């Protein structure tokens, strides 16, 4: 069996296993419960075993898929650092007053010999359809697969983290294995809520969640992606609202769901644009039944004749230039279909040649930004970031899963997956949004005291980093950070869960000194903090976050250098670096407040204890990954492990046409640099060194400040806050976003609704209806008295009377004697015969 048939099957099994687990636990537990059968807790435990078994088996299968199938067929090569984008860079370099102009010139000269070959073709992939949900004309809604290195990598990462979370949750959710008293819910009589434990249901949702995320990863087209996108949304709704009796939890679940719908609206627009202009949803080229190749979305936009650069298709141009085309057709005067088609083609070609290449780019921009809107919602980017911190209402394992591997990762993954769709302007939007997000979130995180909230804002901030990287052209950097972040963020969340489990509080002001009580949690969390802060030795090695963040900063610097002239692109470098420092600061603030110093709440401290092995085991495993995820294996490693590193994997997965730099079309100054420019060897000093120094410096400064303030307490945090009161208030109140949205959207909607209900509905519509009813009643009364009572009743009464009289006169015939009736029949037969005979003889002739 070759890879093309084995791999889809392997991944499909890995994908469907959680679904099977969901189905089994639904049928086995939820359905009986729905029917009123109490499932015993000793039985509920098996739901966890089923779910864990499914996801671990999925992980094993994913590893087999990655190391056993994919890598042997597509061996990794060492990262090529030579060259990148040339012709455009050369032109650009000569025109822009770049500080690093000589770099660009040097690069251009260096690479002039292979000027046109450096843009990448499509990476190796396997695609196909499993099942067609529906075919409407050309529109095929299918369950399909698109498997490339990214898919396989994501499968391994998602199943690994989901496995850890599942196992961890087995320990964490033990409370649900007996009747549960929810201390945060106060009933009307002042009692706390007592309810049945819902252990099985939690694992049921987890399984469905994993299934949905894996579905996004393996999805072969945008339609299927959208389906699983929504499935992820509904799962997050279930899980965030797991403690549905709590007002805050149900509100948070609603908020997450509704905010995501806003983003999905944009995504639908993007999907419509794609469908109406490209005519397909498939990512890859699909072989039709008759053997012809149907080009997918990516290869339609990146055609060989354009050297795989992004270029709008004919249909986009035709759509945008429809007025010109109509004019041309009118001029040509022919309505023959063949002639008209020729006219259209000629006109499209003319438009494509004319006036730069602006025709069609607007649609491209709309499609890209539309898709990105969905990602904004899912990945909690500004301005839709407000749901994520509230999502902390769910149980901590859910937070870990939502924040690392599944929900928010889905947004970044989709941006990465549909990367060939984005034009330079769309990428700029992504970058700017990411930049705003990362800054806002970082500033908010600095002042929060809820341990999970701090982590939540850090997630938002890190997602901003990823979006920024992607937006600045750093595809590998963004997705690299996604994966490393998945490891250390899930680690951090699970650690915080462990702490919460121990002290039964989220508030860091109740903690402190826990290092002694729960050393494993403390030191694994320290690893996580170091990783997220990006600590490492430049050019040598570091925690995983160091490598990925370094790549992002390099890309930002590269972008600044290429857009020197526009005057604000420095912000896209400085803000991230500043935020990186903030990140290091607040993470260590968190660690110090929680684990270092003296215990601030002795009661809680005394009851604290290290978590069970089912919880610490995943912590240690994830800590290991948080350290080593950025490292690579040498080229002489055996078999599929040669050159194995996540950046190399991602480099192999690089989508079609994304290596090239992208010059802006509408913004003529805009230049999204190729990723390789940033770490090409000859660019070493000008970009890699300053970027690396900036990143590590930011991390060290942040850690140092945190140490000064919270460990040594040389500077009082309270005084500092008082000194910067406006800034502190801004951060503490989360930039008043919730209040702003409440003021801008929620209240006006309430007011308008109230107005419509009172005035339109009650006043206007009810009034009209009442008037109509009154008129109808009047008419009915007229008809009733005049027509019905008088005319009709009289007629009917007369008939009744006549019938009655007739019946009276006929009743004497009814003797009730059976034998007389028989006699009547016989006599009548004879009479009939005689009459008929007489008739025949007399009238009809003999």
């Amino acid at each position, binding site marked *: 069996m070759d890879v093309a048939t084995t791999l889809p099957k392997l991944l499909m099994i890995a994908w469907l296993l959680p679904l099977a687990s969901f189905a089994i636990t639904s049928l086995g537990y939820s359905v009986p419960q729905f029917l009123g059968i109490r499932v015993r807790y000793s039985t509920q435990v098996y739901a966890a075993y089923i779910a864990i078994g499914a996801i671990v088996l999925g992980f094993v299968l994913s590893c087999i898929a990655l190391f056993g199938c994919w890598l042997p067929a597509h061996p990794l090569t060492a990262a090529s650092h030579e060259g990148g984008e040339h012709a455009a860079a050369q032109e650009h370099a000569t025109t822009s007053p770049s500080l690093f102009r000589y770099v660009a010139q040097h690069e251009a000269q260096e690479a002039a010999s292979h000027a046109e070959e450096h843009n990448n073709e499509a990476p190796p992939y396997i695609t196909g359809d499993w099942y067609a949900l529906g075919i409407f004309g050309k529109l095929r809604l299918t369950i399909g697969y698109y498997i490339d290195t990214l898919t396989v990598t994501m499968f391994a990462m998602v199943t690994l983290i989901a496995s850890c979370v599942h196992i961890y949750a087995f320990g964490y959710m033990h409370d649900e294995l007996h009747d549960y008293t929810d201390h945060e819910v106060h009933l009307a009589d002042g009692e706390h809520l007592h309810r049945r434990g819902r252990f099985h249901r939690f694992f049921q949702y987890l399984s469905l969640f994993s299934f949905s995320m894996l579905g996004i990863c393996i999805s072969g087209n945008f339609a299927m992606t959208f389906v699983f996108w929504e499935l992820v949304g509904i799962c997050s709704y279930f899980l965030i609202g797991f403690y549905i009796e709590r007002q805050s939890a149900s509100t948070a679940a609603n908020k997450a769901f509704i905010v995501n719908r806003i983003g999905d609206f944009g995504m639908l627009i993007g999907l419509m644009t794609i469908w109406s202009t490209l005519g397909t949803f498939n990512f890859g080229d699909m072989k039709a039944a008759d053997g012809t190749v149907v080009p997918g979305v990516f290869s339609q936009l990146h055609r060989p004749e354009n050297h795989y650069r992004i270029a709008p298709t004919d249909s986009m141009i035709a759509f945008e230039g429809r007025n010109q085309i109509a004019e041309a057709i009118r001029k040509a005067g022919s309505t023959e279909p063949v002639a008209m088609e020729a006219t259209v083609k000629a006109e499209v070609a003319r438009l494509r040649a004319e006036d730069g290449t602006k025709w069609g780019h607007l649609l491209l921009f709309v499609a890209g930004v539309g898709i990105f809107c969905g990602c904004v919602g899912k990945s909690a980017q500004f301005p839709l970031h407000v749901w994520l911190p509230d999502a902390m209402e769910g149980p901590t394992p859910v937070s870990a899963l939502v924040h690392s591997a599944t929900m928010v990762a889905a947004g970044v993954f989709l941006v990465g997956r549909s990367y060939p769709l984005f034009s330079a302007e769309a990428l700029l939007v992504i970058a700017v949004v990411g930049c705003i997000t990362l800054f806002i979130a970082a500033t908010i995180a600095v002042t929060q005291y809820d341990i999970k909230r701090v982590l939540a804002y850090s997630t938002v901030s890190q997602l901003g980093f990823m979006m920024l990287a992607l937006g600045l052209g750093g595809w590998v950097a963004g997705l690299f950070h996604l994966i490393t972040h998945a490891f250390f963020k899930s680690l951090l969340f699970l650690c915080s869960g462990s702490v919460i489990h121990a002290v039964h509080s989220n508030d860091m002001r109740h903690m402190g000194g826990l290092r002694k009580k729960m050393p494993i949690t403390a030191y694994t969390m320290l690893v996580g903090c170091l990783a997220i802060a990006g600590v490492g030795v430049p050019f040598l090695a570091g925690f995983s976050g160091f490598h990925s963040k370094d790549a992002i900063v390099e890309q930002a610097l590269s972008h600044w250098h290429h857009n020197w002239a526009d005057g604000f692109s420095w912000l896209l470098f400085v803000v991230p670096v500043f935020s990186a420092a903030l990140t290091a600061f607040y993470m260590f603030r968190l660690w110090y407040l929680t684990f270092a110093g003296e215990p601030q709440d002795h009661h809680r401290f005394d009851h604290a204890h290290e978590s069970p092995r089912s919880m610490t085991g995943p912590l240690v495993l994830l800590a290991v990954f948080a350290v080593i995820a950025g490292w690579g294996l040498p080229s002489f490693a055996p078999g599929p492990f040669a050159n194995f590193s996540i950046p190399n994997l991602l480099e192999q997965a690089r989508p079609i046409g994304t290596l090239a730099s992208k010059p802006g079309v509408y913004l003529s100054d805009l230049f999204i640099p190729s990723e390789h420019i940033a770490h090409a060897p000859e660019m070493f000093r000008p970009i890699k060194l300053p970027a690396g120094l900036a990143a590590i410096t930011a991390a060290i400064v942040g850690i140092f400040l945190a140490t000064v303030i919270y460990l040594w307490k040389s500077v009082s945090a309270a005084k500092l806050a008082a000194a910067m009161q406006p800034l502190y208030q801004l951060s503490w109140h989360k930039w008043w976003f919730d209040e702003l949205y409440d003021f801008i959207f929620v209240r006006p909607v309430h007011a308008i609704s109230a107005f419509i209900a009172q005035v339109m509905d009650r006043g206007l519509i009810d009034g009209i209806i009442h008037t109509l009813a009154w008129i109808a009643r009047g008419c009915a009364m007229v008809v009733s008295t005049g027509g019905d009572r008088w005319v009709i009743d009289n007629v009917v009464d007369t008939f009744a009377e006549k019938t009655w009289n007739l019946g009276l006169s006929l009743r004497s015939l009814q003797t009730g004697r059976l034998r007389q009736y028989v*006699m009547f029949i016989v*006599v009548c037969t*004879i009479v009939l015969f005689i009459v008929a005979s007489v008739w025949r003889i007399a009238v009809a002739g003999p």
Partner: protein
Amino acid sequence: MEDPIYWPSFFFLLFSAIACAFAVAVVVTPNVVRMAFYLVLSLAATAGLFFLAGADFVGAMQIMIYVGGTLVLLIFGVMLTSQDRFISMKTSNFELGMATGVGVCLFILLAVAARSIPEWHGLTAQQVAEIPLEPTAAPLGMGLLGARVDSPDRSGYLLIFEIISVHLLVVLVGAAYLARARRSRSGFSLTSDG
């Protein structure tokens, strides 16, 4: 050796005489048990007429269902309700006379109608001898199953068969129900000590 008498006609006369005679006896006799007995003989003779007309299966059915089943049922009823004052109930002479008159009229009418069609007067012995002797049980069965063997282009009687079956079931259930109702007043039991 030529035979002057056509024997099937002789048997026709014999059976029809029995049938008619006992039918008249049924009308005339006032005793209900004897009526039943005469009716049996009349129906049995009719079965003989069926055999003569080539309908042997129907003839057997006539004996089995009519004579065997229906009449036993009838006598069953007679005995269930048998009390001396009901065994014979006289009808008024006027009614009898009028009924006789009307009956004779009806018979004349029917007889005239029967004789008025020349095609119905019968075949010659020669023609009858040419008709092959055909068994009828299997064709009847196939006809009930919806397949005509004598004229394949015509449809069979499957639907009617089904309807009759359902009808029979309904009737029997209904009869059982009717007979059960308020049985206690009859005071009759099949056992001797009842």
